[in-house]
């Protein structure tokens, strides 16, 4: 009978040591650990809070706009109510009282522009200086809106207004230095150049006449006024431009 004897030493090349095996296991375990978070992960994590902030800002913005629009509307209605009595008083006032009413209307700024233009359209003798003064007062508050409304008058081609409204509007555009109206005024001047009483963009002041064409002298008056206004505005624009150039070169205010 034979007995097997165990080898004295295991073969060194084939059996890793315990330490190596442990090191290998640890290395594998390290590889199984999750990697560091990238930007997307951070964004993903923060997106919840971010969405809440964006939603909050949008809602604030939208609500603000809606509130502003509603307040603007309320203000408009409030101004209309406020002006209603003054408009009646203005329309029926004598020449002296008309000036007070027009200035009171003008103090309502943009809201007064249309009623004052309509008062010009009514053609009540003695009210024109007052209505013009009212529009000047309104422009002191809302310059651009009043200029825009006056540009609308000269831009109208449907004979919506009588010639005195056009004459006053062109004068006021110059007085108020509505520089943005230069192009509209230039087009208006060209349109008037070839116009006759029958084709003029405005009517006469005899509201009972049919057709209520302006007289040739009236057409000439508006032409002259439009030319004068255009020249005045052009000179305002030129001086403003040259002022800017000066500032650009030499600075200062």
């Amino acid at each position, binding site marked *: 009978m034979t007995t097997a004897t165990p080898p004295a030493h295991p073969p060194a090349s084939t059996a890793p040591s315990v330490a190596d095996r442990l090191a290998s296991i640890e290395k594998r375990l390290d590889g199984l650990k999750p990697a560091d978070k990238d930007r997307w992960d951070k964004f993903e994590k923060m997106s919840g809070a971010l969405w809440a902030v964006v939603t909050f800002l949008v809602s604030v913005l939208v609500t603000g706009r809606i509130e502003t629009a509603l307040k603007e509307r309320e203000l408009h209605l409030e101004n209309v109510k*406020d002006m209603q*009595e*003054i408009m009646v*008083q203005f*329309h*029926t*006032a*004598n*020449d*002296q*009282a008309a000036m*007070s*009413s027009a*200035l*009171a*209307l*003008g*103090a*309502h*700024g943009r809201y007064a522009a249309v009623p004052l233009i309509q008062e010009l359209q009514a*053609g*009540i*003798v*003695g*009210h*024109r*200086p007052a209505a*013009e003064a009212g529009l000047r*007062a309104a422009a*002191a*508050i809302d310059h651009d809106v009043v200029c825009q409304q006056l540009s609308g008058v000269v831009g109208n081609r449907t004979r919506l207004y009588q010639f*005195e409204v056009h004459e006053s509007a062109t004068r006021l555009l110059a007085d108020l230095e509505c520089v943005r109206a230069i192009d509209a005024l230039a087009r208006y001047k060209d349109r008037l150049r070839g116009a006759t009483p029958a084709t003029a963009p405005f009517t006469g*002041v*005899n*509201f*009972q*006449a049919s057709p209520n064409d302006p*007289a040739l*002298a*009236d057409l000439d008056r508006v032409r002259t006024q439009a030319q004068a206004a255009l020249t005045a505005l052009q000179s305002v624009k030129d001086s403003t431009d040259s002022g800017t150039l000066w500032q650009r070169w030499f600075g200062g205010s």
Partner: protein
Amino acid sequence: MTHRRIAHRALRVVAAALGAFVVPAVASAQAVCTDINNVPGFKIVLDDIQFAAAPADDQKVLMRLLISQLGSRLEDLPDPAPSRYHLVPCPGRTPVGEASFPPLTVRDLVTRDVLLEVWGDVFRPSGGKQLVAMNYVMMPLPRDTMNPFLQRQYERKIVSSPDEVVEWLAGFDEISAYASVGRAIRVIDAQGAPGYDSAKADFATAAQGLRRAYGANPVGAQKQLLEYVDAQQCALLRRARNDAAYKGTMRLLPQSTVDRTCASGGNQ
């Protein structure tokens, strides 16, 4: 708060103050004369004549009477229909002198073919006399050469009833004379040569009427107006002689006649 907002608020406060206090106070004597826009043709605007001795109700009746009588008288004038005067009453309107007629307002009145605006006061009889003050604004008299504002005072020695005063006022030659001056100027401007003959007739009528009204010794503004009318007549004669477009009888007048007419009318 921006400056603009502050200014806006301040102006709104001013507006409220004006609306609340000033406007109702001054607007109590309101009067707007929309008929000026609606009546076609040459117009004489008759504002309020204040009868100091008459109560408010009688004042209205007297004004209605004056409007009726003066209107009829103007209608009866032998003018062709298109150039006839139309009386436009403006009850409640009382201008406060030249300040009520800034250039823009005068121009608007001229545009609407207004020739003359009249208003005045009939004072209470005192010491057996009655004083009447009348104001006239003639359009379109050039302000630089001729004052279009005339004020006249009349003294009636016999104190009469208000009805008689109205009748007397309605018979004034001056009203149509002043209107004739304005119409003549307007016709020349608007029609040119075709209007020369009617303008000449108007100037002649005006000169006669004014001389009759002013008497032998016109004063200041009256004398100036007479000289102005004569000068206009003279200028018209010269213009008619030299205007090729004019084919009427004035063209045939000899130069000597024109010179004589001009010399007799204030050496113009």
